[in-house]
């Protein structure tokens, strides 16, 4: 299956949220990264058929989504950034309700709902009212509803927000396991969520596609640009003004900095292997320096 986004532009009243975004996606996991206001949610809403683009088209195997209509929505699984839940429904009834709107037969819906409650660790809370769920449980229920129809295109807008580390690992494994025969587009602020599982990373800034490539390839661009350096605390401001700083740890009265720099910052600096966190800082460093970046890394 090929999902083609061609020249997607979205103009709101006074803001251009997406500018000529074009990309072709095949089966696998795509991680969508970008600072707040980059247009990630707008892009996902357009693919989820919830928002119309001002310009451009979305095609599946060459067929326009507008022409496919219900057939297109039948391929979708969507988890919005902010998911409301009917509080008076039990988890099981909520999934059955969604299954009904997705046009899934009752018999299949029952077995699928049971299976997904098990997978998402909600089996014991099957008959509990959704209104009594914690944020993490609601998120897991949201993930379960997105998978109900075995979607060929799975769109997850910040799926791991509100999940604890154990749940995040479980979610990563789940997504990785099901990604073989479907397109998964996953937006996140938690860069480490994409480690190991993403086939490609899409970098979006101010509505424009900066880069879309395999994480490994993007990391190659940072080879020789990541340094570890130990400095006395008194020199921190000087380094902060001069370099993009990743991690900072205090050890033995010294500050250990992880620096992104094209050139070796000083003789004693040791080169290190780049990570996706470094990549995020590298591509969005201008914003980072202006103090607008809000990624959790």
């Amino acid at each position, binding site marked *: 299956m090929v999902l083609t986004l061609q020249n997607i532009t979205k103009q709101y009243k006074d803001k251009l949220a997406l500018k000529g975004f074009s990309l072709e996606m095949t089966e696998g996991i795509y991680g969508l990264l970008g600072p707040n206001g980059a247009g990630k949610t707008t892009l996902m809403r357009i693919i989820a058929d919830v*928002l119309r683009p001002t310009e451009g088209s979305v095609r599946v195997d060459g067929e326009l989504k507008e022409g496919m209509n219900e057939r297109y929505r039948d391929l979708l699984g969507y988890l919005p950034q902010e998911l409301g839940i009917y509080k008076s429904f039990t988890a099981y009834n909520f999934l059955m309700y969604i299954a009904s709107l997705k046009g899934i037969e009752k018999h299949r819906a029952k077995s699928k709902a049971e299976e997904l409650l098990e997978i998402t660790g909600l089996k014991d809370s099957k008959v509990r009212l959704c209104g009594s769920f914690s944020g993490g449980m609601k998120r897991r229920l949201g993930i379960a509803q997105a998978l109900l129809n075995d979607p060929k295109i799975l769109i997850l807008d910040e799926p791991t927000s509100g999940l604890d580390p154990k749940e995040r690992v479980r979610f990563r494994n789940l997504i990785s396991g099901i990604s073989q025969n479907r397109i998964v587009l996953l937006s996140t602020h938690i860069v480490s969520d994409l480690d190991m599982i993403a086939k490609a990373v899409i970098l979006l800034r101010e509505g424009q596609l900066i880069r879309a490539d395999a994480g490994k390839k993007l990391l190659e661009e940072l080879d020789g640009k990541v340094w570890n350096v130990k400095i006395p605390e008194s020199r921190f401001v000087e380094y902060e003004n001069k370099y993009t700083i990743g991690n900072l740890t205090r050890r033995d009265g010294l500050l250990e900095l992880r620096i992104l720099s094209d050139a070796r910052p000083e003789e004693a600096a040791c080169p290190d292997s780049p990570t996706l966190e470094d990549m995020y800082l590298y591509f969005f460093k201008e914003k980072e320096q202006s103090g607008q970046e809000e990624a959790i890394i």
Partner: protein
Amino acid sequence: MKDEISREEMDEIEQMLKAYIIPVPEKKRIDMAVNHVAECMRHSNSYKADSGIFSRLIKVSAHVLRYSGKRYFLVCLVIYAAVLLLLRDNRINPYTPVIILGPVPFMAALLDIFRSREAGMAELEASFKYNLKQLMISKLVLAAFTNIVCNSVFSIAILGMYKSVNPAKVFLFWCVPFLFISTVSLFITMRIRGYYAPTVCLGIWSAFSVYITGNTRVMEYLVYRAEIELFVLGGVISSIFLIYAVSCLLIKSMERGDLYGTDSAKYYEAI
């Protein structure tokens, strides 16, 4: 007459046909033509898929009934049954409950029609096979249908209990408030978020209708002196407004956020 074409004639025909050279188009142009035809075919397919609107309406309505209809129907049934019981002692003007109850089932259904918005489910429901627009159409149709059935049955019961009532007036006394008050309530609920909007509308209507029907002079005018044509005119005008209100609601659900500036979430609050 000669059956066979001679060699000379064949050469002559070949020479003549050479004048009609059809240039072979570039591959790019052939591909464009194929794509264009394929697009037309898709449109015709999607037209076929959309042609079963009625069956889809039934499917989505069945879904609505299964998940949110039972309590609503039970409440409607209890209210109408209770009023009929009250009417048995013949001390209440039969037109009074007809007017008061006229738009009540539809107004009560507004709580459910806008439930997706209030629960923050509108965005998710817009992405489903049977999407938010279809869900809202089904709910609106069901609410109107229930309102009409409840009032029709109630009217028949009243006509059976009171031989002196005018059937046309009984019909118009619930029909006009149903059309007019439902439209006003729909407009208000579309614009004001929160479960309290339909509840407040219901409260205002109850207070107003009780006041009107409690006023002897007004009731005398409505029952004995007002022309039926006046009610018919009111009904027609209200119908036009109701159609307009429903169109506004559906256009919003089709335009999906485009009306609400940069924060598309506001759109889902608005529908």
